[in-house]
């Protein structure tokens, strides 16, 4: 049996699944339910200074659905906690006391003054919490007041606040990064330079989830108006994966621990983030979609996969895929693959044909000998994977590497040698 126990910055939890700082971790009642369900830890919803912020009194969430109404993207205009600071602190202390084996990290957001950070850090330390997460990511509401993403978008501020926090608390400091920036490596480096113990990412992405075509109001609509919110859920996972990988493979931050956030819904999502360099993961939208009980699928799925794959500890997975993330010009141009259609699995929908015909390389038949028949034309197939992507039947179309012989498309012999763009004859700046 795989060992799912996790240690992140010395903070122990029975599994690597934490709930991210968000509505599910806003108060004792929810967090206790989460711990009862089996969650390894929480990042308590962001605390601020009194008087507490106020939220809108209308809809604060919006969703993007696939056609079967599976929620694939989620957006919110909720702010940090709108409850009194003392109430939160008391509940945090009580929950940590009652659940000592679970990770209790507290998210913080106060104005960019050293005194404000020092004061709140002292209060959090008194609760017995295990660590703090600096909310430099929230893209709406707070950023307009000079907090959240407004800090996260300026690397110098990140470094400054990280330094203050490391100076004024003994607790581990995690810096939560906003994705609303051009190059995620810069804020990560700033956190590292400022002495932060780890980064967590991604926070939500600036978004307008939809427009109501009757009222012409953006959704969620407050009295006919809408404001941009923070986008999350399964649809943001690819963006988060890339940002995690960028930090994990950046020489400056390669040893900086990462807590990954961004659309994690299944054990497989979690394993992918771990493989790209995250040490643990945080979940929000999935529990807001299905409830806390998905933790059973997450832990069992990860454990079963680790057993099947011969991994004993979560740390064995961390970064396994990071070395395989390269810049494009390093990719092997002598690697040749062609699509193959399993005729026994093919249901004859023809989607592979029409997308290849309309939008790609005219490399799949529709008719052979007068019969409806879909088959790859090797002379045209560039191995692009579009047909695999659109086929409704899993494993019906696969990409198969051509190991020897001649590429029917180019007429070139298939070379076993590695060769990339940097040495390609078509590259004007090739190193010859």
């Amino acid at each position, binding site marked *: 049996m795989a060992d799912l126990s996790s240690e992140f910055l010395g903070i122990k939890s029975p599994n690597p699944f934490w709930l991210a700082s968000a509505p599910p971790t806003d108060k004792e009642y929810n967090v206790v339910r989460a711990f009862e369900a089996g969650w390894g830890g929480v990042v308590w919803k962001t605390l601020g200074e009194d008087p507490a912020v106020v939220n809108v009194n209308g809809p604060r969430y919006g969703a993007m659905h696939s056609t079967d109404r599976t929620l694939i993207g989620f957006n919110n205009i909720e702010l940090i906690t709108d409850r009194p600071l003392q109430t939160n602190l008391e509940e945090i202390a009580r929950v940590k006391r009652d659940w000592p084996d679970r990770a209790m990290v507290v998210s913080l957001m106060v104005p960019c003054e050293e005194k404000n950070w020092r004061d709140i850090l002292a209060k959090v330390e008194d609760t017995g919490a295990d660590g703090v997460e600096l909310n430099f990511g929230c893209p709406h509401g707070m950023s307009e007041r000079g907090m959240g993403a407004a800090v996260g978008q300026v690397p110098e501020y990140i470094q400054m606040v990280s330094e203050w926090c490391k100076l004024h608390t003994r607790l581990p400091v995690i810096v939560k990064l906003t994705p609303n920036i051009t190059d995620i490596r810069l804020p990560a480096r700033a956190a590292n330079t400022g002495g932060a113990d780890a980064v967590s990412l991604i926070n939500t992405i600036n978004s307008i989830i939809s427009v109501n075509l009757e009222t012409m109001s953006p959704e969620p609509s407050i009295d006919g108006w809408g404001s941009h919110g923070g986008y999350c859920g399964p649809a943001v996972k690819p963006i988060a994966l890339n940002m995690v990988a960028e930090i994990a493979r950046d020489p400056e931050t390669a040893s900086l621990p990462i807590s990954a956030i961004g659309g994690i819904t299944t054990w497989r999502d979690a394993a992918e983030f771990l493989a790209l360099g995250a040490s643990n993961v945080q979940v929000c939208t999935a529990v807001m979609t299905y409830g806390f009980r998905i933790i059973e699928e997450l832990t069992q799925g990860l454990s079963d996969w680790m057993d099947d794959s011969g991994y004993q500890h979560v740390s064995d997975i961390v970064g396994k895929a990071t070395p395989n993330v390269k810049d494009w010009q390093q990719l092997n141009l002598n690697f040749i693959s062609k699509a193959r259609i399993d005729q026994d699995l093919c249901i004859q929908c023809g989607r592979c044909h029409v997308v290849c015909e309309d939008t790609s390389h005219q490399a799949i038949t529709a008719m052979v000998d007068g019969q409806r028949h879909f088959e790859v034309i090797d002379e045209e197939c560039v191995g692009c994977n579009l047909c695999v992507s659109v086929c409704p*039947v899993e494993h019906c179309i696969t990409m198969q590497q051509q190991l020897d012989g001649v590429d029917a498309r180019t007429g070139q012999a298939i070379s076993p040698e590695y060769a990339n763009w940097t040495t390609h004859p078509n590259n004007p700046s090739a190193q010859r």
Partner: protein
Amino acid sequence: MVSPNVELLQQDLHPPLSRHEAAVESDRCYFCYDAPCVTACPTGIDIPLFIRQISTGNPGGSARTIFNENILGGMCARVCPTETLCEQACVRNAAEDNPVRIGELQRFATDHQMATGRQPYRRAPDTGRRVAVVGAGPAGLACAHRLSLYGHHVDVYDARPKAGGLNEYGIAAYKTVDDFAQREVEYILSIGGITIRHHQVLGRDVRLENLQRDYHAVFLGLGLAGVNELRIEGDTLDGVVDAVAFIAALRQAEDPAGLDAGSRVLVIGGGMTAIDAAVQSRMLGADEVTLAYRRGIEHMKASRFEQDLARVNGVVIRTGLQPLRVLGDEGRVTGVEFACMSGDDGTWGPTGATVILPCDRVLKAIGQTFVSGVLDEEGGAALAMEQGRIRVDNERRTSDERIWAGGDCVAGGEDLTVAAVQDGKLAAESIHSVLSKG
């Protein structure tokens, strides 16, 4: 006789899909390339498009896609044997043996549009051309609608007091509840430019030669006015009833519960009419209904779904029974004697055994025939025939250059509502192209 099931006559076989059900079901369509379902549809409705329009919240556009090819899309959604047409071709059969419920989705879209009372079409300016359509069944109505769309004026002559043909008189009540057949007729006629003349029997009240004289073109959608007779001893006894007439009487009855359905009913035949008659007999309260068919179950024209429907409603289906004679007592039917048939050696023939099934009512449903006599009038058009029906070409032109025909009265057809609609549509296109040339 008290009937516990008579209310079933006025209940949908498949309740209409709710908006949510339609959303879930429409999402199952793969939007296939050169979709097999479209090829399988006699009217060639762009099924992937109309389903995608439901999925994207545009049921009105979806209905327009359907009506573009089949103005009787509402009725076809109810009566088409989809399990042998579009749904049989659905690639979801290969994927999981469970096709997209195309017929029910079609009903969802067409019901939506018909509930608005608006057609998605506007008639072209009047061309001054006049076309006579004989028969207000599916073929005639489809033809009339499309001709009117192009701006021609259409007079429809029909023998019956109501339009709709078999939709109104010839199919089971539970397939067209809430007077759908008449509502659809009204919907089609709302395009304007179509006048229906009732109680006009060809050869009696209206003559083909006059129509040829008075109109620029004529379309014949005559249907099948005759029924096959058993032609055996006793087939005129009291209680031996034509199933088509039984269904028509049931459909037109003010109070179906008041009809005498018999208590032990024997339906002879293996097609849709046989099933409709058998199931409705049960619903009217008949204690025992047996459907006797001369060959094997796989030879029955009624689809598998229809066979199952009959069984679910308590109809016993017996195969390999060829009627020999109708037995009677004091002029009333008491049973039928059958020759037992076997097809074990590949060809069907009598085994030598016979069996008597007692009954108090026999419903004959062994097929309908085209009554060609109406065409043989003096001075009228002598249309070329084929296998007892009117011969037509791909455009549904008859041997007379100004007469077109379609529906069950033409040779080579499928005897389906949807095929009749296609005939009417194709004929209208052909007529329009001829009339447009001057």
